[in-house]
């Protein structure tokens, strides 16, 4: 797979974005803020969201013609990594994924209609990535769209939709005339907040009970292949966020291993603590290689390589973050398993992210089929 540019397409403006994001998020999203928002009914700070929109983040990858910043996947990966590091509670991810779907599947008129609102931060948007049966396969869609006159009638349920209770626009797949079709739905559905395992990430279950929507809400290029690519690109983006969270987890555990003394020694001097942390660091770096590799391949238009890279990124990030938080709780000892210790936020984020967009086993099963050039065993 010799298909990623040697320098990953990295340039000064990537660096500027990352450094700016790190400073901004350090200031706006300290751990006290996470604790406050965990008990907040909305779950994120609308003032911070407004600032993020003003910084151009809400439309980071949206073309400039539609009010966005027109940046690429590597920008997105670096920004999400910083957000993951701070566990930023935000409608950002859902909006980014909805915009991605509209860019990939919508025609010019549809893009012009919805993208500017997402880019300005005025439209809270999200992606209906799952249904209650919990299949990560893009083809497993049970919700239906039935044509009635010049409208479509949508029926079915979407689960675990990020910020679904607040979203004014949701992109989701429905089966229309026996084929997968993507719709951009501006309200009219019933949203019931779920009790998310991750207090920094609100989700909702959306119910479509024969909701009639106009014909032009069906994204003209939203077939199964496109939906599959959207989900894999989303997985690559989520993996970037997970690498950031794993990095922060490792940092907390490292600091504790330096501070904490037992048997008159810093516990980080024990190889039983040191070596697992080194393995976590190595895993994070390898996962990061895949995250940047997939991003660079998407930016270069090498879709096949990018999709393999996305699977590797999400598979590795899922395992690495899970391992890092496990060590995080364990090495913090009795304190690590209290609600006072910050580690539980990362632990819960790890469980959430692993469960979305395919876990490690799911992606490795697909990768095996790629490796062997068959349809899977």
């Amino acid at each position, binding site marked *: *797979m010799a298909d*990623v540019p*040697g*320098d*990953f397409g*990295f340039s000064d403006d*990537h*660096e500027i974005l*990352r450094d700016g994001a790190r400073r901004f998020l350090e200031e706006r999203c300290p751990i006290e803020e996470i604790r406050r928002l965990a008990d907040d009914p909305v779950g994120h700070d609308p003032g911070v969201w407004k600032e993020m929109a003003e910084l151009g983040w809400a439309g980071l990858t949206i073309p400039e013609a539609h009010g966005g910043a027109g940046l690429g996947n590597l920008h997105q990966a670096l920004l999400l990594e910083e957000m993951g590091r701070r566990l930023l509670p935000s409608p950002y991810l859902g909006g980014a994924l909805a915009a991605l779907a509209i860019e990939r599947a919508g025609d010019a008129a549809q893009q012009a209609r919805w993208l500017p609102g997402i880019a300005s931060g005025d439209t809270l948007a999200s992606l209906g990535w799952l249904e209650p049966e919990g299949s990560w396969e893009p083809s497993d869609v049970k919700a239906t769209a039935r044509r009635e006159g010049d409208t479509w009638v949508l029926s079915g349920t979407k689960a675990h939709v990020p910020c679904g209770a607040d979203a004014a626009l949701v992109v989701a797949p429905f089966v229309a005339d026996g084929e997968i079709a993507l719709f951009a739905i501006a309200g009219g559905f019933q949203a019931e907040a779920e009790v998310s395992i991750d207090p920094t990430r609100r989700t909702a279950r959306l119910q479509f009970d024969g909701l009639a929507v106009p014909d032009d809400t069906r994204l003209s290029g939203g077939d199964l292949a496109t939906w599959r690519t959207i989900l894999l690109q989303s997985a690559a983006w989520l993996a970037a966020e997970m690498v950031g969270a794993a*990095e922060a987890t*490792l940092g907390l555990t*490292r600091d504790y*291993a*330096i501070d904490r003394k037992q048997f008159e*020694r*810093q516990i*980080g*001097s*024990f*190889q039983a*603590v*040191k*070596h697992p*942390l*080194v*393995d976590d*660091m*190595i895993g994070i*770096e*390898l*996962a*990061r*290689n*895949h995250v*940047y*590799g997939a991003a660079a391949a998407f930016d270069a238009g090498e879709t096949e390589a990018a999709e393999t*890279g996305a699977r*590797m990124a999400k*598979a*590795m990030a899922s395992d690495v973050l899970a391992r890092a938080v496990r060590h995080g709780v364990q090495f913090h000892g009795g304190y690590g398993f209290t609600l006072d210790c910050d580690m539980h936020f990362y632990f819960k984020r790890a469980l959430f992210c692993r469960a979305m967009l395919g876990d490690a*086993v799911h992606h*490795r*099963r697909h*990768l*095996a089929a790629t*490796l*062997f050039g*068959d349809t899977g*065993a």
Partner: protein
Amino acid sequence: MSQAVEETESREIAEFRAEVRAWLAENRPPKPDFVMPQNFLFVETNEQFEYLRDWQAKVYEAGYLGLDWPAEYGGGGDTLKRQRIVTQETGRAGTPFFVNTIGLQWAGPVILKYGTEEQKKKFLKPILSAEEIWCQGFSEPGAGSDLASVQTRAEPAASGNGWTVNGHKVWTTIGTRAKWMILLARTDPDAGKYPGLSFFLMPMQVPGVEVLPLIKMTGEGGFNQVIFTDAAMPRGAMLGAPGQGWEVAMATLTFERGAAEGTGGGQATSSADTVQRAAKLASQTQRDGRPASEDPLLRDRLVQLWMQEEGLRLGGMRRRVPGLSPDRPMVLALMNKLVYSEYAQNLAELGCEILGPDAALWMGDPNAPADAEWPRAYMNSFGMTIGGGTSEIQRNILGERVLGLPKSK
């Protein structure tokens, strides 16, 4: 860089790559009718050695080795980028490895870094041409992972000219063929563990140097022990200053572990033990009456190694983009040896498992698949996880130097 400059450069690179590729296709040596060692650590017979030495000389004469070393010392005075292309292409072509690996990748770079003008003029060109083979004298029976406890002594010669060496080195790869050794020895026993060490360029073919082969678990040779008994080392043999030995040795290990650039080029192994190869093996091997490639558990393990292999490849690229590792600038370089050696070991072991019952056949049995190359590779892989600093030491180094954890006592 402007787009025009970038395009010109990438065109030049593509042309150079095509040139190297064509040269390799034209000039690759015929497959020998004897068993070849799997990498430079395991050269044993004269015919293996001569075959490999001829190949390195030929590549050097064609101008594809030492491209980035200065021209006045026999190098090409060219860019590291072009040397890397040669290394990529030799790996891709699966041509034999370069037998003078210790010269190219360890001794040469430290001589370039610490050597006097005289030393550079004398030693570098014969390293590239493989006229003079180099070995390494670091480990001792009592100094393995704790390298700084070496006891081999270098004392000023009674004649007042040069040094006298006494001691015992082990794991001396290619010691029987070497003309020179990079030697870590104690010059001042009262100066403390680290400052008491100095670094030398020691002649091997002199009285008082005895090279005794060690036999590895595969039954193959390649490693040796070296006994020094009042061996004479000339004046001017020291590299760097008295007491600077530990620093030079650490710089050597940085090159050895692939953590520093500028190693003269060179692929140190001929076998491309890639996941693709293991996947092919699985497709061609029956397991309980079906192709092993249909076993979901084997598939998953192979995919995990593929992710490592691909992660290492991408990491090699990312290392050259400092802006993509701002928080831990050295981590990719320092973790490379550990991750690669464990990946290679796991892959070789998985290859044995894919073979199933036939993994029980050893070299020489007519039914042993590919003369037992997978079990042999698995056994040999411990050379990489132990040599050059064990995996356990690598984890300490990463934990302490990169993560900043306190030292293990």
